[in-house]
């Protein structure tokens, strides 16, 4: 048995091809990015070693700081929305629904699987004001809230919020299913016992559910955090970073810097910052739980 499972040739055949592809395409580029950060221009076009100049530039770059701020607002808003509403939905599946549990769960999860661009096109039409009112504005106009009719994604004040609503709508079903799985693992006797002891809704939540759900909450927060730090596709597809730079995330800024302005070295530095924020942030969140996730 062990002899068969120690077969070196088989291990090589099983592991090496995937290992090579993964190393070349996922891991090597991170090291490569780091090396690029010391250069200005783009390869083949005024590509010079410039030491730490990119690093100095970063902290004075108003556009980067603006993108960072937009990204942070987005992270906080979407994380709270996705995980919070996901949790509330899971409570609903658990305690409120007796009939149609599977049907409602299937419906709520459905937006998770939709293509980002398709969802964004759909929401763009929902928020539309020109040339015809979109779904939201036409409903608002119909129920007499004419003064609320506005270009939802066409003005800086509401664009980011509208984007957050879309991304929360998409992902809350995902988190509700994860939380629901964890709720199912809590023995019914525990909940019953607490109920008999007189624990009402809030007490039950505070002393029974919250501690038992801690690991899954932390996992969800990490998932949501790593997903929102990347903020790219939905913003590109819904608003293309605009209007102005109201929804321009770090990734979009990096993309513009590297591919439109041809500053590959500087773009790589921003990419590296995104990577570091991602690792540091998920590390911090994981520490909320004693058990490590990664």
């Amino acid at each position, binding site marked *: 048995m062990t002899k068969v499972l120690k077969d070196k040739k088989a291990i090589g055949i099983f592991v090496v091809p995937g290992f090579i592809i993964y190393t070349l395409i996922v891991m090597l580029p991170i090291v490569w990015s780091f090396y690029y950060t010391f250069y200005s221009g783009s390869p083949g076009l005024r590509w010079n070693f410039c030491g730490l100049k990119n690093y100095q530039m970063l902290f004075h770059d108003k556009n980067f700081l603006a993108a960072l701020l937009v990204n942070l607002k987005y992270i906080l808003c979407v994380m709270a929305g996705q995980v919070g509403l996901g949790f509330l939905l899971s409570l609903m599946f658990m305690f409120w629904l007796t009939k149609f549990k599977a049907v409602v769960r299937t419906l709520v999860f459905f937006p998770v699987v939709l293509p980002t661009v398709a969802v964004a096109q759909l929401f763009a039409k929902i928020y539309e004001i020109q040339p015809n009112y979109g779904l939201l504005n036409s409903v608002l106009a119909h129920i007499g809230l004419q003064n609320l009719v506005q270009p939802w994604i066409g003005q800086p004040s509401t664009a980011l919020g509208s984007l957050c609503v879309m991304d929360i709508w998409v992902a809350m079903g995902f988190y509700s*299913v994860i939380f629901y799985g964890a709720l199912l693992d809590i023995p019914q006797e525990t909940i019953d016992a607490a109920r008999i002891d007189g624990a009402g809704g809030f007490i039950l939540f505070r002393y029974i559910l919250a501690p038992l759900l801690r690991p899954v909450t932390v996992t969800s927060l990490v998932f949501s955090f790593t997903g929102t730090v990347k903020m790219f596709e939905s913003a590109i597809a819904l608003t293309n970073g605009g209007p102005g730079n109201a929804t321009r995330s770090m990734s979009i800024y990096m993309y513009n810097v590297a591919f439109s302005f041809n500053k590959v070295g500087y773009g790589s530095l921003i990419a590296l910052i995104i990577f570091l924020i991602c690792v540091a942030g998920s590390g911090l969140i994981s520490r909320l739980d004693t058990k490590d996730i990664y």
Partner: protein
Amino acid sequence: MHKTKQIPVFRTIFIFFLCLVELYPLFWMLTASLKQQSEWTSKPAYALNSGFYFKNYIDAWTRGSMRIFFFNSLLNTFISLFFIIIMTTTISFALVKMYWPLRTIVAKYFTMGIMVPVATALIPLFQIYTRSGLINTRLSLILVYTAFGLSLSIYLMTAYLRTLPDEIMEAAVIDGCGIYKMFWYVVIPLLKNAIITVLVLQFFFKWNDLIFSMTFVSDTKLKTIQTGLLYFTDEFGSKNWGAIFASVSLSVFPLLFLYLFLNKTIMEGMTAGAVKG
């Protein structure tokens, strides 16, 4: 008495409202894709379609080249899924059930990739592809799809493999099975559920990819469905809403069918504990 009766009514209304919020935009999309252009100006946006104007779909499919984008996405997705599954099952098996030095380190190395933001790898990959002439090819997308699909898949698959008892493999070895035969005839069938979960998840990810295909592919003939949709909207502008909705619906249908057929497996996979860490 009153209280016990009132709460369920409130609950029912709330649940109904929730389902409405989740479903209505999609329902609206379907009705909108069947509207004629004149309906948009003559009636409010929430009105139902007055007829079934299937020409929108024909427009999207032929004039808007959705058929090319559709085919490209299917091809790229299926080929990369094939490689993801082969590599995920073999690597996970070697990591969990076989004995070799460094295997815990290699396992950590593979899971690290879950945290790598796609944006970080984008610039170097673009340079590598440009220099090796892979830019604007199908291969460039298939390679990144496969490589970026490995981490999460291996993470899920190893979690599943750990729950499998070793006795079944032992019996096969005593019967004289070699490692490859045992892997193919004994282990793979046992992994059926995990393979389906990984396949479905990765299908969603690959089908929905935007950032890679918009970076590495600029040729209209090679565009995938997501970049195609963006391009399509630019092309038709805000003039032809019906055709835009038809193209969006077309990109959603495969996922809709896949999801409705497999949602039980997905739910089981999601709640079974693999994602709970």
